[in-house]
């Protein structure tokens, strides 16, 4: 089983997000980056499938500036076999069709049996890149996987539906599947894994070798949203805060 895992590096949930002077994105110089959380589950699932089926290869694929090699290495340290880095100059691409065309053009000749992606990226939140790539490569596609079960030339996927419903779907291979967080418990890299990762190959593909010409969609401005609701802000030391909460519970909400 030859598996590609698409991994994106995104701003961490605790990082500051200062907006650039031209307002079209955040100042990445001041941001701390992490692996997109569902992608971490996708890597784990790929490693588990490789272990279960007994053979194969797990390849970490990421497109972005030089910094993304960090998340590729993280995948290699956990046990993936090699990495592919599609280099991007400057600001990250925000057009899913272009990203998918770039990545598909590189995955095309590799003939993967499975492409695993995260269901959604924490930064642009397009929720589609893995599915676009699956379609572009002529694969069957499945989204929001909560469990997988590899069979002969097929994979059964437990898909999450809305409001607590699920459904099993059987997809013929090759397939591109987006992974919902929580379907497994991602491992931490071992010290040996971290040392071993240094020797594993990361193939770097320069922008000219993958980037497509036409960009059909872009983010032109980012801004802080305005709230419409009347909210009482409660700040200050813990004791005065607790006193105010008690008063609210007692006098305003009357729940005590």
């Amino acid at each position: 089983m030859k598996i590609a895992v698409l991994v994106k590096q995104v701003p961490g949930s605790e990082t500051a997000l200062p907006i650039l002077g031209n307002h079209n994105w955040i100042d990445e110089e001041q941001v701390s980056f992490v692996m997109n959380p569902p992608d971490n589950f996708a890597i784990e699932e790929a490693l588990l499938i490789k272990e279960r089926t007994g053979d194969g290869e797990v390849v970490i694929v990421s497109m972005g500036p030089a910094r993304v090699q960090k998340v590729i290495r993280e995948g290699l340290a956990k046990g993936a076999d090699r990495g592919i880095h599609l280099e991007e100059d400057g600001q990250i691409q925000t057009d899913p069709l272009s990203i998918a065309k770039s990545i598909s053009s590189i995955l095309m000749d590799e003939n993967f049996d499975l492409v695993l992606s995260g269901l959604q990226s924490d930064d642009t939140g397009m929720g589609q890149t893995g599915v676009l790539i699956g379609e572009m490569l002529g694969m069957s596609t499945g989204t929001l996987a909560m469990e997988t079960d590899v069979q002969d030339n097929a994979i059964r996927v437990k898909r999450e539906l809305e409001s607590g419903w699920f459904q099993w779907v059987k997809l013929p291979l090759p397939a591109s599947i987006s992974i919902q967080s929580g379907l497994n418990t991602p491992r931490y890299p071992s010290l040996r894994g971290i040392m071993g990762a240094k020797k594993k190959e990361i193939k770097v593909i320069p922008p000219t070798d993958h980037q497509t010409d036409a960009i059909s969609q872009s983010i032109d401005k980012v801004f802080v949203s305005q709230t419409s609701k009347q909210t009482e802000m409660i700040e200050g030391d813990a004791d005065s805060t607790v006193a105010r909460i008690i008063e609210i519970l007692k006098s305003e909400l009357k729940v005590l």
Partner: protein
Amino acid sequence: MDILVVLEDNRGSLHRMSKEAIAGAQKMGGSISALAIGVNADAMAGELSDVDITEVITINHDFVSSYNADGYSDVVSQVIKSESPKTIVAGHSYQTRDFMPRVSAKLDIPFIPDIISMDDGIVKQVLNAKLNALVTTSADQVILSFQSATFSEEAMVTGSCLTRSIEVNLDSSIVRSEAEEPFQEDAGDVDLESAELIVSIGRGIEKEENIQIAFDLAKALGAEVSASRPVVDSGWVEPFRQIGSSGQNVSPKLYFSLGISGAIQHVVGMKGSKNIIAINKDPDAPIFEIADYAVVGDVLEIVPKLIEALNN
């Protein structure tokens, strides 16, 4: 045709988000057709008979009698090709997430998902809902999906609407996947939906050991405990306690949120709460936008003191 609204069948009736998408299309203006697919196509068209749009196009075919991504992406692509709408809209439901990207890839039409406003251009949330983004496209045709409650179904303008049934040719090789019956998992023994008071835990609780604080607070208040998805994913509380798009919908008298950021997938499950108190150490946390009382501070410091005060 200016706008094609792709409708969703929610076990025999029109999905709430499809009605919101119609309201959105009406607000955008122009001639509107809606597309109903499957065994319930006529029933869905019936629900829209007094709505002010041009027509409902119905398609029923053995390969798309019930939802499957292969068949739907093919049928919707065929209709877009033959009818040439400038804009294709749908609710940003799980089903849309599943098949709409494939339509986008097949036809090379950009898909801008999860839109929260069309007032001054196309706006979606980015960076975990902490910022909004204005998205533009240079393409002639575009696919848009609207986040839940971006438009209100009550805003649907009434009038009249025709029904037109069309035939499609589908090759049997198109449908490659085999779907089994949908099912629900163990509902648990906690009735969150009718709970009056709920204490809800997010990743801000930081460690499994700290979960007890939330249960202690709930006990002092006589409340039930719920959680955000990451807390459930970590195995710290049972799945049936999850609130949000993939969990439960609640509307208690008080929703007391501890260290939850306020991502939309969580908020859709609790925004109907009568009163919301949120504790979060980040003054810019999106949860504060919908909170009545926004407590800026450390859960691990405030909650133990609050429990002590309540128990006195």
